[in-house]
């Protein structure tokens, strides 16, 4: 330990007596560490923004049959949903379920393949839906009477009729062999994004998207009656309530279906977009940091280069030291300390600059980024910069230590 401090002191003396050169050598490491720390911090901030934003939307939960217990997953009936709606009334915005089928619609403009959502009335306000712009949604009454009514979106209206002023009109819908006249009672907004996407699909020659939302009981008329749904979506007023609402719903369904076995219903694991996006973000950050990390390797080669120059310059000193009793290990330790200290100091300066840059980016609000300093990244940067010094210092240090004292003393 005492000896080690000796080498540290020797290294510091030598770095001090070559200030300019030592700083220029550090510069490579400084730039590398600064960029890695800054990039990881920006990535961190972006990820946090996205995860926060997506967490805000997670106030919808889905309860579904536990397929390990129940043989037929379609076991949530319309009655169950109506019951849930009344039981949970205070705490939820909507309790909805749907199933899908398809058919064709014939109009003067031609024949279209149509996508049919067979839904419960609360589907009006389910997650990821756009608001109605005209008319109204179907009601419990429509469901009870299996009324042939539908709600279509603006895009469908445009495709079928050329305009959206179509409330009260009807379309001829064919499902399997059954043909029904369906009355249009409401128009749902089509989002701007959807409009844009559809334009591109059309350009690619894909079919026009025609979709209808209808009371699920109309399935009787199409000869394929729907009694039950595989899952029910419940949207609470806020995220905090969602979990307890889901628990309640599972309990209610379980007690209504005790004949199906032990706990036939479970909460579906929410599709966690925040996790997915978080890991994508992590990947991108890691990649960019890796690219920046290459500059660290370049910096390390700079350290190696200057240490080699230093060994050549100090050949005589090495000879003197060896003549006076320095062993191979002492010379290696002396030069390794020097390169490790140079790159370690570069690392520390780099971290400070990186932290400053992170604070600056956040303060200036460039692109609305709230960069967040990552402590694991700082730790890795520190360890990495020191190891760069040691790894790239080994070759010059060994070269120095292997010099024969006679050779070294002979050279001027």
């Amino acid at each position, binding site marked *: 330990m005492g000896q080690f401090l000796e080498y540290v002191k020797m290294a510091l003396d030598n770095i001090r007596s070559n200030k300019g050169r030592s700083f220029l050598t550090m510069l490579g490491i400084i730039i590398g560490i600064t960029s890695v720390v800054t990039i990881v911090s920006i990535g961190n901030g972006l990820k946090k923004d996205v995860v926060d934003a997506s967490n805000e939307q997670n106030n919808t939960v889905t309860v579904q049959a536990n397929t390990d217990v129940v043989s037929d997953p379609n076991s949530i009936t319309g009655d169950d949903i109506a019951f849930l709606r009344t039981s949970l009334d205070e705490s939820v915005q909507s309790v909805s379920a749907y199933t899908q089928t398809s058919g064709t619609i014939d109009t003067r403009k031609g024949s279209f393949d149509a996508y049919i959502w067979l839904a419960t009335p609360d589907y009006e306000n389910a997650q990821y839906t756009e608001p109605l712009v005209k008319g109204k949604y179907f009601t419990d009454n429509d469901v009870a009477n299996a009324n042939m009514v539908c709600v279509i979106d603006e895009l469908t209206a445009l495709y079928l009729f050329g305009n959206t002023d179509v409330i009260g009109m009807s379309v001829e819908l064919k499902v399997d062999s059954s043909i029904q006249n369906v009355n249009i009672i409401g128009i749902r907004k089509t989002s701007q994004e959807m409009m844009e996407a559809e334009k591109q699909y059309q350009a690619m020659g894909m079919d026009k998207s025609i979709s209808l939302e209808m009371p699920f009981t109309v399935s009787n008329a199409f000869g394929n009656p729907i009694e039950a749904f595989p899952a029910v979506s419940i949207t609470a007023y806020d995220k905090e309530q969602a979990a307890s609402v889901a628990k309640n719903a599972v309990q209610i369904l379980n007690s209504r279906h005790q004949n199906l076995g032990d706990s036939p219903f479970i909460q579906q694991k929410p599709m966690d977009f925040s996790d997915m996006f978080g890991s994508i973000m992590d990947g991108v950050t890691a990649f960019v940091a890796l690219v920046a990390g290459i500059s660290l390797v370049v910096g390390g080669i700079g350290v190696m280069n200057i240490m080699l120059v230093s060994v050549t310059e100090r050949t005589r000193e090495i000879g003197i030291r060896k003549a006076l009793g320095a*062993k191979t290990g002492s010379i290696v330790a002396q030069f390794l300390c020097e390169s490790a200290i140079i790159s370690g100091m570069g690392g520390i300066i780099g971290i400070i600059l990186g932290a400053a840059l992170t604070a600056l980016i956040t303060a200036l609000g460039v692109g609305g980024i709230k960069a967040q300093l990552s402590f694991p990244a700082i730790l890795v940067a520190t360890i990495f910069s020191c190891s760069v010094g040691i790894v790239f210092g080994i070759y010059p240090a060994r070269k120095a230590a292997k010099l024969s004292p006679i050779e070294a003393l002979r050279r001027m």
Partner: protein
Amino acid sequence: MESLIKIENIHKIYNPGENEVRALDGIDLSIQKGEFVAIIGHSGSGKSTLMNMLGCLDVPTSGKYYLKGHDVSQLTDNQLSEIRNEEIGFIFQGFNLVANLDAVGNVELPLIYRGLGKQKRRRIAVEALKKVGLGTRLKHKPNELSGGQQQRVAVARAIAAQPPIVLADEPTGNLDTKSTKEIMEILKGLHRGGRTVIIITHDDDIAAQVNRIVRIVDGRVENDYLNEEREDA
């Protein structure tokens, strides 16, 4: 009495094969404790190679070197480093001081490799510098000292660790008359103090000041005699 240094039939051959150079060609030599010896010869005679052998800076191609009765002719680099540190104080023609260390720092060097603590090292180094008359130049770097002063720092470095042998390779080769006289006085003082002092030189005037002269010609000992007409005692 066992010799301090005993060399038996030492050869050092460079480039073995066609263009081989026999720098040392069968040297026998023994030196007792407390002797004051000059090894003299022209450049190319092999005296520097002999000095490298004696100083454990190099190992012979063949032959034996017993230092205090131990065979050191085939030791490893690290073992040789240890012996140099313990047994030998070097004084070189070109002073060989480390430029960015001050006088004390230079004298401390062999003590660092001996593993002494900072306080102790410093005390010994300052003591040694006072002995060579540089008590007022402790913090001077080599380039702030005259040639004679630099060589005195080197002498202090050679004696600080109290090695039994002081090996001086052309110690006055780069010095003016006055400094030469100073350094020789210090070396004589070391001899009087019981140290074994070996000077390698090509200068007969220097050789004339010692007790025993070993003349090397073409890698062999040409003659080895006691210096009866020594100039001063």
